[in-house]
Each structure stands twice: as structure tokens, then as C-alpha cells.
């Protein structure tokens, strides 16, 4: 099929509907190409809508992370390893947030190496659960899985609402959830380790 016929197929047809076998074929061809026309429209709106912002944002945050230097957060990893109830928020809120922001998915999980063995599964659980809630505001952390958030956000946009409210709430609820997840997984890990020993 050459370009000319594609254009002809995609143009609005004003002539009368054909009858018979050829008519059915023609309708089928139109329906066929309609799917991809619609898909193309969606693709263009995505590329024109979020892509330019995303590229600029990725550039800025990448530069920021490089200028700060990822090795600066190692001290935080050591602080999070301390026992005691006051370090729980550091271990399961601050460290996952900073790790996912600075190191992004999947390198964020390397921060687990500063923690004792009994905290490692809980930290992984906490960090991996944050790679999507962060996407609303900082998509650089996990651009390959953007559509977990963008898919739903597109629907909100179509309704004419702003995305700020959803993005902020997703991030905040995400922080609460990873905190709970860290604690629950730590408890389960402790029980299983005791049983195994």
C-alpha cells in the first residue's frame, strides 16, 4: 500500500456507500485504518503533551543528581541502619525517597547494602513500592514505567482537571504506604528468620 492510498483511506469519504462484496471490503478497510488513525492521534497528543516537558525535566534532574553526586547519600544509608524506633521513618521514608530520587530504579536498591541483613527485605519492599508514587512529580526516577501514573492521569486531564492534586496525593499516600510496608515486612522477616534459626 503506498502513501497515496493511505491518505485516501484516511480521508473522510463523502461518496455513497458501495454495495456488495467490494463495498464490504471497503468498509472493512476503513474500519481497519480507523484504529490506527485514532492511535496516531493519541500518540501525537502524548508526544506533544507530556514528552517535551518530560525531556526538559529529565535533563534538569539528571544534571542536579550529577552535580550533587550520588555518593553523598551514603551517610544517610549508614544512619538508617541504626536500631531504635526513631530511625524507622529514616529507614522506610527518607532513605527510600532519597535513594529512588537520586539513584532511580533499579539502582536505588543498592542502598540496602548499608543496612543489616534483617532490614534488607523490608527496605527493598519500601523502596520498590515508591518507584511509581514518585512519578507524578519526579518522572526521572522511573521513566520506563511512566504509564502506571500517566495512564490514569490522562483520563483526569481529559475531564479538564489539573494533575497537581492527584500527583501530590499520590506521592504523600505513597510515603505513608512505604512506611507501613517497611514495618510490616520487617516484622514478617524477623519472625521467619527466628523460625529458620
Amino acid at each position, binding site marked *: 500500500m503506498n502513501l497515496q492510498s493511505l491518505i485516501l483511506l484516511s480521508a473522510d469519504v463523502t461518496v455513497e456507500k458501495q454495495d456488495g462484496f467490494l463495498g464490504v471490503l471497503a468498509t472493512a478497510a476503513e474500519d481497519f485504518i480507523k484504529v*490506527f488513525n485514532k492511535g496516531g492521534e*493519541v500518540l501525537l497528543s502524548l508526544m506533544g503533551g507530556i514528552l517535551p516537558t518530560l525531556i526538559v525535566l529529565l535533563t534538569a534532574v539528571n544534571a542536579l543528581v550529577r552535580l550533587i553526586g550520588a555518593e553523598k547519600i551514603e551517610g544517610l544509608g549508614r544512619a538508617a541502619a541504626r536500631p531504635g524506633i526513631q530511625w524507622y521513618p529514616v529507614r522506610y521514608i527518607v532513605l527510600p525517597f532519597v535513594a529512588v530520587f537520586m539513584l532511580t530504579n533499579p539502582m536505588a536498591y543498592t542502598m540496602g547494602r548499608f543496612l543489616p541483613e534483617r532490614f534488607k*527485605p523490608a527496605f527493598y519492599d519500601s523502596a520498590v513500592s515508591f518507584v511509581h508514587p514518585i512519578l507524578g512529580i519526579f518522572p526521572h526516577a522511573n521513566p520506563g514505567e511512566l*504509564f502506571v501514573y500517566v495512564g490514569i492521569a490522562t483520563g483526569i486531564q481529559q475531564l479538564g482537571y489539573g494533575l497537581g492534586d492527584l500527583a501530590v496525593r499520590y506521592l504523600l499516600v505513597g510515603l505513608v*504506604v512505604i512506611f507501613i510496608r517497611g514495618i510490616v515486612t520487617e516484622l514478617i522477616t524477623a519472625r521467619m528468620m527466628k523460625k529458620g534459626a
Partner: protein
Amino acid sequence: MSAINNLIVKIGRSVGGVVGTLYQAGRDAVDTTIRNVIPFMAFISFIIGLILTTGVGDWIAKGLKGSASTLPGLLLISVVCAIPLISPLLGPGAVIAQIVGTLLGVEIGKGNIPAQYSLPALFAINPQVGCDFIPVGLALGEAEPETVEVGVPAVLFSRLITGPLSVVIAYFASFGLYSK
């Protein structure tokens, strides 16, 4: 004279460093966009095109409308996604979560699902996040093999509790979201 020279060299070097960093950051950004983001956009666009132009959309809408616009329905989705045998299968690349998210987005856009439910839905479709990746993630954190052995079931079982719990938290956090 050499002091001035040193200063100039120093300034030149740091400016060059910053510009180089920014340039490299831009290169990385475009690289990720082309390799990870645009291919997925193409794939998602095709699916949306298919949904909007064929009858598939109505069929999915009927299925989703019942489950995704009530709290019990969302809880059911999250429990299914969190079942320890299913969650590692749903995990890889978050592809399932991204497709379901997009389907829900289409239905929210058409008004079939209330906009307020977008927040709990984001958590309902995602209790399986990273469940396929636990051994690798733990290895990245330099965990001992014994820790991995305990860690994998620990995370999977934890999700059964925290998955539905996250939906409930998000449900209560969504009050006042996009309500007129």
C-alpha cells in the same frame, strides 16, 4: 601573573564541568526517552486506538465499571494482584499495571469511573510492584543468600496485608479530590 592564570584555568574548568554535566544530562534524558518512553507510548497509543474505535471498549468498560468504581471492587483487584503466586507473574516491567492504568484512564476520561477513584485505583492496580524483582533487588543490596531465601516470601506475604491496606488509605486520602 601565575595567580591570574590559575584563576582563569580554574574558572574555565568548573564552567566546562557544569556545561559538560548539563550536556550529558540532556543526552541521557533524550536517550531514555527514545529507548524507554516513546516505544511504550506507541504501544499504549495502539491499545487506546483499538479500545476507542472497536467494541472492545464497551466490553472493558462494563467489566471495570463494576469493580473500579467501588471500594470493595478496588479491594478485590488489589487482593488478586497481591496473591503470592500471581504477584511475581504480574510484576515484570510493570507492563500489566501500565496497561490496566491506561484502560482505567480511558474510562475515567469518558466519565464511566468517578475521577475521585483515580487515587485508590493507582494503588489497587499495583500491589504487585517489584514482586518479580525481589532476588535481584536484594542482591543489589548485597544481601546474603539466606536473607534472599527469607526475604522473597516475607515481601510476598507482606503485600497481602499492605496491598489492600494501601487502597483503603488512598480511598480515605481521596476525599475532596476532583469533587465539584
